[in-house]
């Protein structure tokens, strides 16, 4: 299989000067070349060359008058300053000012930049920024499938559509279905941003390119200051123009930040690699989870009720499921996170599969209701698309810092199974697994993903649903021979699921401690001890139904195990692969079932001399491993809102041995 996560390596800087013609940039390039020397030295020290070219290709396209070359040039500058390698390809019409809006008047600037050696400007853009219909028409064909289109809808009026020879609006006729589209009125947003400067409409609209550049800078996490400096220098004699352009730049940047568009924006180009035969498609983590939940509900033979509340980066799941009503899905946008989970609990009580989803802050709000689901022993799936925290934190940045919240984060002794997806594709199987555990054990289950997984797209070998074993739910529908007890248990300690409406099985449940078997209110000391033990044992019993932990690369007994979970899969895999190729005795273990863990985990972990745990938090899985197995797991932590690089994990492996 191809890497699920685009490998990222330490940056080498190799300034390609094509496309850069401005005086101001030379300084930056000079500076960059000096840094390049340092980077080369580092690389020689580390003793390997990057084996894979990981890069992003962005094409800015617009009318000749839209200033695309300027935009591209400035973006190139920011790439250089960010330490990226890059190559550029300016493509502009021969005419200085071709008629506005025409196909031949389109000007484009393409840049391929990345974290390893870049030799070309890229065959296919990953991102196309199209400032008008003509730019879209002439450039979209080369956009890679699944790539991102950012377009200014303000220019998509009938007149411009006609000029571009569109017979229908491409945003409405489905012709862009194979790409991701972010279309909004950049023209209007620019006018609004530069309003204070009292410019005429025409002049004001000329700031559109800076607005777009601002958005692009936000997308790739670039510093605005060099561009601001450049604008101030360029318009030194007309401060209003300088200020207006800076305002537009800032507004575009702010738009990205406040609209929380991180979703589809970070696009990495991954080279084709040998892959198993079959039908493929692209899938994002949010899509994959949605489909997995649908598949899980079908395998359980249940209708699904999804209660959600908008939050970045989890909303996409609500969006996807709300379009799948024909699969027996009811979606409910609740008034808040608490109502979202409570409505899902209500639906589970009534006999459907209750599902809710959120991100860290919303998950915190749901905590009390998770306790209710644990106490009433109802099936429920809670999806947490983690983001940087605490509090509002970094809504569009990825992090793995909700593991404590997932495993420990409720009042009382409140055990709940937790599983974590490693990649967008893995989300499908994890969602199916979450549903299985929820209904087979009558328990809420938390499924962890993160902002990266939720929004990232990757190729997916479309699964054959016939290969999934159904786990049909059997509701209790009549009084058993030995009488009906709402909290009677099977061999797994699961209690019966009774749909309201069933004659003869009337009963009451709630959050107050239950009497063993009968479910009546009972505060007796021995009863609480017994029920606490039962709830804990029941969740531990989930381990009977999950496979043993496998070692991804290598085998038990090595000198060092790198143990990960979630979206660190890609960089850990690559780092361990490289180190093993160098002859280092290191293995990779990646945990899906975090609570309870596979039964062989203790023995497996104890077979290694050393264990390190790279995580995008301050050491949460590390704590759980120490707590559960008394192993000397050592943390490798990163909480910058950015994923690990391969080199960082290689370095950690190096220093552990």
């Amino acid at each position: 299989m191809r890497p699920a996560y685009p490998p990222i390596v330490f940056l080498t800087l190799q300034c390609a000067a094509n496309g850069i013609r401005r005086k101001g940039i030379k300084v930056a390039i000079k500076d960059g070349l000096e840094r390049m020397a340092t980077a080369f030295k580092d690389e020689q020290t580390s003793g390997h060359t990057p084996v894979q070219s990981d890069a992003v290709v962005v094409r800015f396209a617009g009318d000749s008058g839209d200033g695309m070359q300027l935009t591209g040039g400035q973006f190139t500058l920011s790439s250089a300053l960010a330490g990226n390698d890059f190559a550029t390809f300016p493509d502009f019409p021969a005419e200085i000012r071709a008629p506005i809006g025409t196909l031949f008047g389109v000007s484009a600037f393409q840049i391929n930049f990345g974290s390893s050696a870049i030799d070309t400007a890229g065959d296919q853009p990953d991102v196309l920024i199209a400032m008008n219909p003509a730019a879209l028409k002439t450039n979209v064909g080369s956009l890679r499938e699944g790539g991102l289109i950012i377009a200014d809808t303000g220019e998509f009026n009938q007149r411009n559509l006609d000029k571009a020879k569109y017979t229908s609006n491409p945003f409405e006729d489905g012709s862009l279905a194979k790409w991701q589209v972010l279309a909004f009125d950049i023209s209007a947003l620019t006018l609004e941003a530069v309003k204070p400067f009292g410019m005429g409409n025409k002049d004001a609209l000329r700031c559109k390119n800076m607005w777009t550049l601002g958005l692009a800078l936000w997308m790739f996490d670039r510093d605005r200051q060099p561009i601001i400096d450049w604008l101030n220098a360029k318009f030194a004699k007309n401060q209003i123009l300088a200020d207006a352009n800076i305002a537009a730049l800032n507004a575009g940047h702010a738009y990205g930040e406040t609209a929380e568009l991180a979703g589809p924006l970070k696009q990495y180009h991954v080279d084709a690699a040998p892959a198993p035969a079959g039908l493929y498609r692209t899938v994002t983590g949010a899509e994959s989870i949605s489909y997995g939940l649908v598949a899980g509900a079908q395998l359980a033979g249940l209708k699904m009720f999804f209660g959600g509340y908008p939050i970045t980066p989890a909303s996409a799941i609500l969006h996807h499921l709300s379009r799948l009503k024909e699969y027996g899905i009811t979606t409910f946008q609740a008034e808040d996170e608490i109502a979202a989970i409570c409505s899902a609990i209500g639906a589970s009580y009534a006999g459907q599969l209750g599902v809710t989803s959120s991100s860290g802050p919303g998950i915190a709000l749901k905590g009390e209701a998770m306790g209710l689901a644990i106490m009433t022993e109802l099936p429920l799936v809670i999806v947490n698309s983690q983001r940087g925290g605490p509090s509002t934190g970094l809504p569009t940045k990825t992090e793995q810092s909700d593991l404590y919240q997932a495993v420990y984060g409720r009042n009382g002794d409140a055990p709940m199974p937790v599983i974590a997806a490693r990649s967008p594709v893995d989300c499908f199987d994890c969602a199916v697994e979450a549903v299985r555990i929820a209904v087979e054990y009558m328990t809420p289950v938390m499924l962890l993903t993160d902002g990266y997984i939720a929004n990232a797209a990757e190729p997916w070998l479309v699964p054959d649903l016939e290969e999934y074993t159904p786990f049909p739910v059997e509701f209790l529908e009549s009084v058993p021979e030995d009488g009906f007890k709402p909290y009677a248990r099977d061999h797994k300690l699961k209690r019966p699921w009774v749909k309201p409406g069933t004659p003869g099985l009337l009963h009451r449940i709630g959050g107050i401690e239950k009497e063993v078997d009968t479910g009546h209110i009972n505060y007796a000391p021995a009863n609480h001890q017994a029920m606490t033990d039962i709830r804990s044992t029941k969740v531990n019993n989930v381990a009977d139904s999950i496979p043993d932990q496998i070692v991804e690369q290598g085998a038990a007994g090595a000198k060092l195990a790198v143990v990960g979970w979630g979206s660190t899969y890609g960089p850990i895999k690559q780092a361990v692969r490289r180190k093993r190729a160098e002859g280092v005795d290191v293995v990779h273990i990646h945990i899906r079932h975090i609570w309870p863990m596979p039964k062989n985990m203790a023995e497996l972990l104890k077979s290694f001399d050393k264990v390190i745990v790279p995580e995008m938090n301050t050491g949460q899985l590390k704590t759980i491993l120490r707590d559960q197995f008394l192993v000397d797991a050592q943390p490798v932590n990163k909480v910058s809102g950015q994923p690990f690089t391969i080199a960082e994990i290689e370095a950690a492996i190096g220093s552990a041995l």
Partner: protein
Amino acid sequence: MNDMTPVKATTPKDWETDQEVRWCPGCGDYAILKAVQRTMPEIGGTPENTVFISGIGCSSRFPYYMETYGFHTIHGRAPAVATGVKLANPDLDVWIITGDGDALSIGGNHTMHLLRRNLDCQIMLFNNEIYGLTKGQYSPTSRVGTNSPSTPYGSVDRPATPCAFALGSGARFVARGFDVSKNLPEVLKAAHAHRGAAFIEIFQNCIVYNKDVFEDFAAPKGADGHQLWLRNGEPMLFGSEKSGGTKGIALDNVGLTLKVVDVVDGDWQSAGVIVHDVTNRSLAHMLVEMPFGEFPMALGVLYDDPRPTFNDAVIAQNESASAGKAPDLGKLLAKGQTWTVAEGHPET
């Protein structure tokens, strides 16, 4: 097997559980429980198709005492749980039991949205103007100056008016009663007959922490002069010779407010007494805000004007969006941007 069970009329006894009722002796909740158990057979309810859902508080123990399905949820969240229950199975008759703290303080948001959406259910808000279960703190409906453990010098914040809150939230049915009133079953029946969210405020006497705060209108003595029982199509009359004469509610055409007028010799028409129209929303707004003292307490069905329900709309949309579509997950997964990798070849 679909054996038809012969429909057997229930009795109040059929709606009682074997659980020991644990409210304080003399609590108004007992009377409400009895009224509900008396009402259920009269509305033709079936225990297995009835669900009582509550939050937290003294009132929220209610489901344990009803021989139906029941869910004692968490503080303030009964409306949210009820929404999931009703959407998952619209055939269930859903009753929400809540209190002034549960529905208007911690759960105010859910109450508002349930009413706005118009989920088909009954919401019985037991208003005792106090937090009983936590031992007597003042509540969002406590009157200014209420002395309580948390307000030893008297509460300073103005109380919410539950029925005004309900109307403001878009409720299409608003009614009032009180625990020991003989008219309570009649109000409950009207609420049940209303399709949509039916909001019933029930004044309930907390004999331990807020004893007799409703006595000024609920006490049998002088009741007819203090209680205005509203009935659709009937003039708004109250009082008797004993209470100082028959009176009525009329509109002050100058100030556009309600006023109390004397009715002489039963001639309410010439006194301008308003005929109650449960579909008149403006009138309902005036009735819920009528200050007691100067006016009698408006009781009974204040407002009843059904609109399409949330659950019907959700299900209709589920059906229309699904119409003509054959759900095939395999096909769905293989849809969109796909490509095929041939055997023995790298990706194409």
